[in-house]
């Protein structure tokens, strides 16, 4: 790899490892120390490599610098403690005096423990996701802002408030006791699922970034499956679900970034490898009796990997949505269930069901009814699509609705 590409690449892959290890080493109370050491390390790399060329092993080089930086800090801290502290009488927090450990095992452990710490329920979910992107995925502030369709100031505020909360709550960066894992892991999975969805459904025009978000969510979920303490069936189910969705990533947008609906996708562009990885994890998720929402959603996603319409396919999807809605209600599931029903019972029966849903403020509701009335009542179909157009949030969505309107 060329020098100019190498540093950004290493920044992407190594920043998150070093920062996770350092934050865990120093604790949330010394968050800024960890951040300073990590950024300094990359700054020094940029300067030195620019002048002297690349070292033989750039990764090891980065780790050594991070280690030395942290040793320097300890030395300064010792001086401070001996000479200044008695005078100041300040009870400043002690720093751990051991070397930082950048072995692969400790990197993995740190990232795993960090996932649990960042899913602390004291944090609002958007802070959880932002901090996850920063610390566990090594995303820049600008990228996070781009993903959330907001500005850098908002993200900076979100991050610093989140860090402050973790600090004042004294959140420990450890794996929960094995008895608590089952309970705590749900928060981790929620945060990872949100991260994935942020990439999959976000209306950010940056396609590369969106795919990155999905891949990062999958990588972190993968970390959970690789550790026997955290490898629960529902973790495998979530990973299967992500694989199935991600398999359509290249097929679901056109060159201009507009969404291509499922029925119109080029099946050639579906990623077979991800589909079979999905099968692998769904099988693995089926051990034992656990049936989580992720199992049901993965089941639905599984049937969507079969392109051909059949009664069997839609009957299964309908039953899975029935079960899913009993476990957890969401407007999207309610609408998708109604769509599945239309595939089996016909559009008229689905209209009756749809009109019971009470989702008149949801633009997807009107998109669905627009589709269901298409072919039998053009007037009603148009009225619903126009209503959807008024309620839709993004240009991409509006364009999709306009296309549907043009067809009528």
């Amino acid at each position: 790899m060329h020098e100019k590409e190498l540093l950004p690449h290493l920044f992407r892959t190594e920043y998150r490892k070093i920062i996770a290890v350092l934050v865990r080493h120093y604790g949330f109370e010394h968050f800024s120390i960890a951040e300073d050491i990590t950024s300094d390390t990359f700054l020094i790399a940029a300067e030195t490599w620019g002048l002297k060329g690349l070292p033989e092993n750039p990764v090891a080089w980065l780790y050594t610098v991070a280690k030395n930086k942290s040793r320097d800090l300890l030395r300064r801290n010792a001086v401070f403690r001996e000479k200044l502290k008695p005078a100041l009488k300040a009870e400043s927090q002690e720093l751990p005096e051991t070397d930082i450990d950048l072995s692969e095992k400790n990197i993995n452990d740190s990232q795993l423990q960090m996932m649990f710490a960042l899913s602390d329920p004291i944090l609002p979910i958007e802070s959880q996701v932002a901090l996850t992107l920063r610390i566990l995925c090594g995303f820049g502030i600008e990228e996070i802002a781009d993903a959330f369709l907001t500005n850098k100031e908002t993200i900076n505020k979100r991050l610093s408030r989140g860090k402050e909360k973790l600090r004042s709550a004294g959140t420990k960066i450890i794996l929960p006791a094995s008895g608590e894992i089952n309970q705590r892991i749900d928060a981790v999975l929620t945060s990872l699922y949100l991260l994935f969805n942020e990439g999959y459904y976000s209306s950010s025009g940056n396609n590369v970034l969106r795919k990155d978000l999905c891949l990062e969510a999958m990588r972190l979920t993968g970390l959970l499956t690789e550790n026997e303490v955290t490898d629960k069936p529902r973790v495998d189910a979530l990973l299967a679900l992500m694989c199935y969705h991600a398999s359509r990533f290249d097929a679901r947008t056109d060159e201009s970034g507009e969404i291509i609906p499922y029925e119109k996708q080029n099946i050639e562009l579906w990623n077979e490898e991800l589909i079979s990885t999905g099968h692998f994890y769904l099988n693995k998720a089926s051990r034992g009796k656990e049936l989580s929402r992720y199992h049901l959603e993965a089941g639905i996603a599984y049937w969507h990997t079969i392109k051909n319409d059949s009664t069997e396919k839609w009957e299964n999807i309908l039953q899975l949505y029935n079960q899913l809605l009993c476990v957890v209600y969401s407007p999207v599931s309610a609408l998708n269930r109604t769509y599945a029903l239309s595939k089996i019972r016909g559009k008229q029966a689905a209209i009756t069901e749809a009109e019971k849903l009470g989702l008149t403020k949801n633009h997807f509701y009107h998109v669905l009814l627009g589709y269901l009335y298409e072919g039998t009542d053009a007037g009603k179909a148009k009225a619903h699509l126009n209503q959807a157009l008024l309620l839709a949030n993004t240009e991409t969505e509006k364009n999709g609705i306009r296309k549907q309107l043009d067809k009528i």
Partner: protein
Amino acid sequence: MNEFLLIFRSDFKSAAVQPSPEQLQHIMKEWQNWIGSIAAQNKLVNSGNRLSTEGKVVKPGEVVTNGPYVEMKEVIGGYTIIRADSMEEAAEISKSCPILTVGGNVEVRTIIPMTP
């Protein structure tokens, strides 16, 4: 919004008239679609349970009889809890309960929350 208990009653079926596996599967689907339809309206509180036909009735004076029923008719087969704006709405929802197609009925009762 109030919560309502739906009690499903139907005649006791002897083993001789039990449905075939195919019929059973069909009945199950009907139930799942009905419950799913309630859940899709965000009106399902608890999908409830089915009840076995076995049971005992305990009466004063240490009298214990077999069977939860006086007659073979109208045995409680299960229950579900839903939420609805009114008794009328709860009754309306119950009109599409699959038990009605096999000669059973649904008893709709308003739940009065216990104040601690």
